[in-house]
């Protein structure tokens, strides 16, 4: 905050935290969105669907890691994903 950023990157901000601490982090994130854009990296589907307005799903193949599979409104991505890989991932049927 000291350097007045426009964007804050949070990499697994609630990793290994208990549910109460996780909730506090998520509430703080919501408060911060009034002034900042937050990009959060998480592997927790429920957390992603709870805290975000937009979601990007990245995956990896043999040649590269972190390529974008699908991006869209969170409500859309978790209820009607357009990409089969996203569908498989959010429903836990990947691999």
């Amino acid at each position, binding site marked *: 905050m000291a350097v007045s950023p426009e964007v804050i990157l949070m990499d697994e901000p609630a990793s290994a935290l208990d549910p109460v601490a996780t909730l506090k982090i998520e509430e703080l994130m919501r408060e911060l969105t009034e002034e900042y854009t937050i990009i959060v990296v998480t592997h927790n*589907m*429920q957390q992603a*669907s709870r805290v975000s307005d937009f979601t990007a799903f990245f995956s990896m193949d043999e040649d590269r890691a972190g390529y974008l599979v699908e991006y869209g409104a969170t409500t859309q991505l*978790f*209820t*009607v*994903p357009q990409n089969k890989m*996203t*569908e498989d991932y*959010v*429903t*836990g*049927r*990947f*691999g």
Partner: protein
Amino acid sequence: MTRERFEQQLHALLDQVLVLGSMVAQAVHDSLDNLKKRDIAAARCIYEADVKVNEKRYAIESGCITLIATQQPMARDVRFLAAILEIITELERIGDYAKGISKITMLISEETLDPVLVYELEQMAALGLDMLQRALDAFVAGDAVIAREIPSEDSKVDKLYNQLYQKLMEQMRIDITTIDRANHIMWAAHNLERMADRVTNICERIVYVATGEMKELDTTEGFKVGLD
């Protein structure tokens, strides 16, 4: 990771929806048969067995809620479970129509029924039940194309209902002593007309599961008489 247990639970719920569908389809079929034969005892059985339909609906609803709470379904899974919650409500209401027709059979036990009118009621029931069976097949197959086609057939049921309505109104105008009987027949017809409307609602949910699209499937064709 394939979530085998979750898959099994979803399949088990689908099976139960089909059981509920068979229960109400049989109840509608039998309720018409009893009306035709004026079998009061059998009509009472269907009337009282509606509680089993309701219990089955609540059991499925409870199963859906448990899966939502414990499995955190997403995407197609959450659409599927949301659709089941809606579809079982529609099926339960179809069961109520069978109950309503059974009640009419009990009420008109002493009255003579015009076989032509009964035949027309049977035609309405046959069309509605055929729509229901194909809708449930489409649900199992996840077939949005068939689900979109079925509601257009509702107009055939509406047409039969309109014909029957006009005929009964004419009878009542000519002979006021037929009012009670005609009114009962009209209610039976109304129940069957509504059954086809319920199938349309089921089809909307099948399209939603398959495509994520939630919108009304148009069945309006011609003028509808009576109450909705």
